[in-house]
């Protein structure tokens, strides 16, 4: 391994340790990275109390070539959103409405059968939340790779293996050995990298990572985050990264969407959102993060507790019960996302700041 010994960084983006790719990972074919437009996406889960919305009309635009982070507390609907991008919401869940347009694919929600299956893996790379267990325990990584290739009609399997090996080596692993290993022979960090490899080896250009570093050690987490960043750039991807750890999102993403109770409450460039949060939830959240710098005494927890499907208000703003800026209108009407320059915020209290042109994203 020849990772740099001491890496000095001044800015997060771009300063990767050169493009020296060991083994020469294949460059994806030319063409711009895809953009994604999610419109009014509603996903409901069937519960004993009836069908409850886990996503309540989410609209989100992911610009091509960016790394977009989706942050939110447990149960805010992040995974549901990520799965929806692949039209893969699991029962008892059901996509109740909306659309997910992906450049080059069209509306993913309209895809069916083999079309959909082909899109998964080939166009849409998904790195699983519990990557620890995302491999078939009975097969070696290599065999699973071949399964993947055959399922997608890849003719040149040897080339696929070569690509995979190169990709693994790019991420600092001994490719041949890893391909020859079973899941249990790999450590958590290695499995996560294998997960990334399997998501990208068919040249998917949209990478969706659901909590890629949860359950990993700090140092390993740092490594994986670096790899995500580098691979994103090298392969020209559009990346969506779901995490509950704002720090992780802050470290790698260009843009950040904050979710609460199945809505995107704020969306904008990471630096801006963190530096000057607009939505009271974002503000509260950031203030609640334990940090290494600054005065610990200033940190505050958000009052109340995060909602669950059952406790989510069906009317008005989902955040109002914990909101310091709560107003009367919040009881009755749900705030619409309002776009102002690069930022989109969904809050009644913030509406005066919205520009006249900003109703709705990309209106």
């Amino acid at each position, binding site marked *: 391994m020849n990772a740099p010994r001491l890496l000095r960084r001044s800015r997060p983006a771009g300063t990767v340790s050169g493009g020296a790719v060991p083994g020469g990972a294949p460059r994806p074919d030319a063409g711009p990275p895809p953009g994604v437009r999610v419109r009014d996406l509603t996903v409901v889960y069937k519960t004993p109390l009836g069908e409850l919305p886990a996503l309540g009309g989410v609209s989100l635009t992911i610009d091509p070539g960016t790394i977009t982070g989706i942050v939110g507390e447990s149960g805010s609907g992040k995974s549901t959103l990520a799965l929806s991008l692949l039209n893969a919401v699991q029962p008892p869940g059901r996509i109740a409405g909306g659309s997910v347009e992906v450049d080059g694919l069209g509306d993913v929600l309209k895809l069916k059968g083999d079309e959909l299956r082909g899109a998964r893996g080939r166009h849409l790379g998904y790195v699983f939340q519990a990557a620890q267990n*995302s491999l*078939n325990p009975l097969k070696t990584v290599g065999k699973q790779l071949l399964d993947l290739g055959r399922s997608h009609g890849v003719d040149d399997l040897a080339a696929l293996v070569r690509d995979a090996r190169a990709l693994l080596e790019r991420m600092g*692993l001994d490719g041949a050995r890893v391909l020859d290993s079973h899941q249990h022979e790999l450590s*958590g960090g290695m499995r996560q990298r294998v997960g990334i490899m399997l998501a990208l080896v068919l040249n998917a250009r949209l990478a969706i990572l659901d909590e890629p570093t949860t359950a990993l050690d700090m140092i390993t987490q740092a490594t994986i985050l670096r790899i995500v960043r580098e691979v994103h750039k090298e392969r020209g991807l559009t990346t969506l990264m779901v995490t509950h750890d704002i720090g992780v999102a802050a470290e790698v993403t260009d843009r950040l969407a904050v979710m609460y109770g199945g809505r995107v409450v704020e969306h904008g460039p990471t630096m801006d959102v963190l530096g000057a949060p607009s939505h009271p939830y974002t503000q509260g959240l950031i203030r609640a993060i334990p940090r290494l710098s600054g005065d610990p005494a200033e940190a505050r927890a958000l009052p109340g507790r995060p909602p669950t499907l059952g406790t989510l208000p069906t009317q008005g703003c989902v955040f109002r019960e914990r909101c310091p800026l709560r107003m009367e209108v919040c009881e009755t009407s749900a705030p619409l996302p309002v776009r102002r320059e690069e930022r989109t915020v969904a809050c009644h209290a913030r509406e005066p700041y919205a520009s006249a042109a900003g109703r709705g994203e990309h209106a």
Partner: protein
Amino acid sequence: MKLFATRDASPAGRGGRTGHTGSADDVGTADAPIAPDPAGRRAAGRAVRRRLAGHLVRGLAMIWVVTTISFVIIRNIPGNPVLGQYEALIERGMSPDQAQRATAALYGFLPTGSLWQQYVDYLKALLHLDLGQSLSTPGTEVTTLIAHAASWTILPVLGGTLLSFLLGVTLGVYAGIKRSGKLGDALAISGSLLHGVPQYVLGLLVLAIFTTLWPILPAGGPVDVEFTPGLNGPYLASLIQHATLPVLTYALASYGGWVLAMKSSVATVLGDDFILAAELRGLSRWVLFRYIARNAILPLFTILALSLGMLFGGAIFIERIFNYPGLGLLLVNSIGARDYALMGGTFLVTTVAVIVANIAADLLYAVIDPRVRTGGAA
């Protein structure tokens, strides 16, 4: 046998997956692969051998205990073989005097000496795989009788178990995947019911249906003696005809267990993350099905091995009902005749079959599960 004591080894009893999940090894962040270097593989081979050795030692110890228990019980069985034989001879028309002398000659070689001495002799002979001479079939080695009977037990046991395994596993996959559907429910309920019903009830019903109400199959016996044994059509046809009902009963009796076990195993696997992950990678349906089936069937193989061992001695009801000359019937008959040696031998062989099956199951697991094979988590 599907009575109560073996519930645990019957398929549904072990429905869950044998846990080979996280261990301390998974905790570390070691980025170095843990095994697949040649030294590791060799070590794994050694480990499997050591595992085998350990099993053998434990198995032998268990055999010894079982031998002792059976010796003690069997030597305490009331009922004297001499008396039984005597009355039998009398009924055959011998004079009392004659019958008495004949039995005396017959049982002239009943074990003598102190119980302790008998025990020591018994163990010594066992070391030479000598189970002694049968009392009810004088002059015949117990091992010969057992070998003959075993060959008859194997046919229906193996046939029935494999049949039900194939059927049960196939339908179990279906029931597992369509868990919430009507047909899945029906499969599960029918599985539970068949699993729950004792063998003899099934056997009697099958017999009543196919020989009394609708007599299309022979009611019992192993094979028609008219045909020369060997690989000829009539002989084999007769063999199959006679085996049909016992095999059917076996299959019915164990089918339910397989359905339930497979269903719950499939349900567990379906809940595993890697299945969703595979789906999200766009793997084809067929590959996905293989992933599910292979992972789900893994724990069932061990149960299969175990149940084969168990069924070996558990064929009593079926063999009694269908007059099938296997080990179970041998045991029943030997008890009736107070044939100590045969009784002890049959019981021992039955138990050893279970112990061997246990070892086999464990080794089988080591062979088919890479997690055990290459020594990840154990």
